[in-house]
């Protein structure tokens, strides 16, 4: 299977090309079972693209992506989800017409056979109740998701992810656009989830990173720049250069 025994996700030699532009250029990445991994890097480093490849949204030009020994490339999105990978999006997408509970119930239900779907939902299943509890939206359970605030939507999305009961969670910038208090709560949520899940978090926010990350991978221009624990990565001069250099460009 692989040289790394505890690995849940193994990416080898990954390349993604958009109209001649190499968004990902030979990335190797291994995420072990139970790990909480942060993926950082300046804009355009290929972080989101990496997640897109893992979840089937983008087809790679070369390379392999293995999840618990199963090759993911070429599989369609919902198949990958069924293998046990869940993700969130930078801009949260929840179903505004459905209530919070219905959103969660939907997420929890993909293993149900079609005939079972034809029945009406009665009450709230254990999985949904648990997810509702974790994200703390119990008071809003029967409100349509459309009335939620930005932060609440992000939590609902995370809740939907939990309700899916995946083996690997991929969070794409979960705290982007959040207020300080919301960040705090999201961080706690993350810690709680990470306790019994394998999680990969794409994040921009260095403060958030410092507080909650342990293992960090830095991407730059489609390549892995550095990998290691937070302190080591932060101390790495290449990382500092990339971030400082890039931030100047960002202003342009």
């Amino acid at each position, binding site marked *: 299977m692989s040289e790394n025994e505890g690995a849940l996700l193994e990416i080898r030699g990954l390349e993604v090309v958009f109209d001649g532009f190499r968004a990902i250029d030979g990335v190797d990445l291994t995420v072990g079972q139970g790990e909480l991994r942060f993926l950082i890097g300046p804009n355009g480093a290929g972080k989101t693209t990496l997640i897109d490849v893992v979840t089937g949204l983008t087809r790679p030009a070369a390379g392999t992506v293995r999840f618990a020994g199963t090759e993911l490339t070429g599989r369609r999105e919902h198949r990958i989800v069924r293998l046990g990978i869940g993700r969130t999006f930078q801009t949260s997408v929840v179903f505004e017409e459905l209530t919070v509970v219905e959103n969660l119930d*939907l997420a929890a239900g993909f293993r149900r056979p079609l005939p079972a779907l034809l029945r009406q939902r009665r009450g709230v299943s254990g999985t949904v109740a648990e997810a509702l509890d974790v994200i703390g939206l119990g008071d809003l359970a*029967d409100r349509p998701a459309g009335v939620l605030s930005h932060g609440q939507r992000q939590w609902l999305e995370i809740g939907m992810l939990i309700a*899916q009961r995946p083996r690997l969670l991929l969070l794409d910038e979960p705290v982007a656009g959040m207020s300080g208090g919301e960040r705090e709560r999201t961080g706690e949520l993350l810690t709680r989830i990470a306790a019994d899940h394998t999680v990969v978090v794409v994040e921009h926010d260095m403060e958030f990173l410092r507080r909650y990350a342990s293992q960090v991978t830095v991407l730059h221009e489609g390549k892995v720049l550095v990998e290691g624990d937070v302190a080591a990565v932060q101390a790495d001069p290449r990382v500092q250069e990339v971030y400082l250099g890039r931030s100047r460009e960002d202003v342009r």
Partner: protein
Amino acid sequence: MTAPGTALRSPALRARLRGYALFAAVALLLLVVAPLALPAFRLDELAKYLCFAIAALGIGLAWGQGGMLTLGQGVFFGLGGYAMAMYFKLHDADGDLPDFMVWSGVEKLPALWKPFESPVVAIAAVVAVPVAVAAVLGALVFRQRVRGAYFAILTQALAAAFVILLVGRQGLTGGTNGLTNFYDVFGRDPEAESTQRTMYFVTAAVLGVLYLAARQLVKSRFGRLLVAVRDGEDRVRFLGYNPATVKTVTFAISAGMAGLAGALFVPVVGIISPSLLGVVPSLELVVAVAVGGRYALAGAVLGAVVMNYAKTEFSEQWAGGWLYLQGALFILVMTLAPKGAVGLYEQVKDAVARRRTPERPVPAQSVQGEAA
């Protein structure tokens, strides 16, 4: 907090009871009052509108709930209608060739017609053929993520092509004339008043049953999933569902409804012809659904009945005016009340409710949640 909604039962229960009462009232009206009050040929007209309402119900499912704007529903209506009419024609011909084949120069019964000698096959085909066609088409296009306007245009082209095919194969289909002049509808004379009354009851009953079934579907988990697919197909994929399957199933159900509507239409009106199935009739049905209110199944039914009734009445008074009226009504509805008559009704109701209880600016749906 484990079971929201169960804590305070009575408002939900009351709402449900009110719903049942209304349904019963409508059923009473349709099944008792209308047949007593209306002469047979008026009842027959009403039956025709109810046929369209059945097809509209399917559009309400596919478009209102599932976001698939199908402009080719006439195709499925036609498949159902022709399947039924083929049986009647063969039954009338009684071993000979149907009349139109004789004057089209067909000498031997085409193989396609053979199975329709059996009423069982014909009735099964009424639903099965449209469902199968929709399933195949849906599987092909939804898998490739053809959707939105693309899907609408494709289904419209399908309707156009279907009509051309029907018209072009005169020996097989009766051409532009369609199939008409049935003498025997399950042992009865289709023009007799008693038959017309019976057909009316059958149509109304089918509409009622399908309405309840569709409503059940909408309220089920599948219905919630369908709404989710409508509002965020790509997101649904990341919840582990295949939206193509959900859409294909729904599209097939709506096609089956259209097929059934077409089959009922044949004995009710006594004819099925390509002019009923093309681009314009298909669009008109969608228009009716939009005017009634696409997001509510009852809106679809309401729209189909009222619009078809208005069309009949209006074109008698001022033929050209109907097009102006239909067009203008449509522009107004789309701009001012995209949720149709039902949506308008809701807005008014909400406004009234808000006025009455200004301290609670919450839509009615959330009452349960608040209580819990």
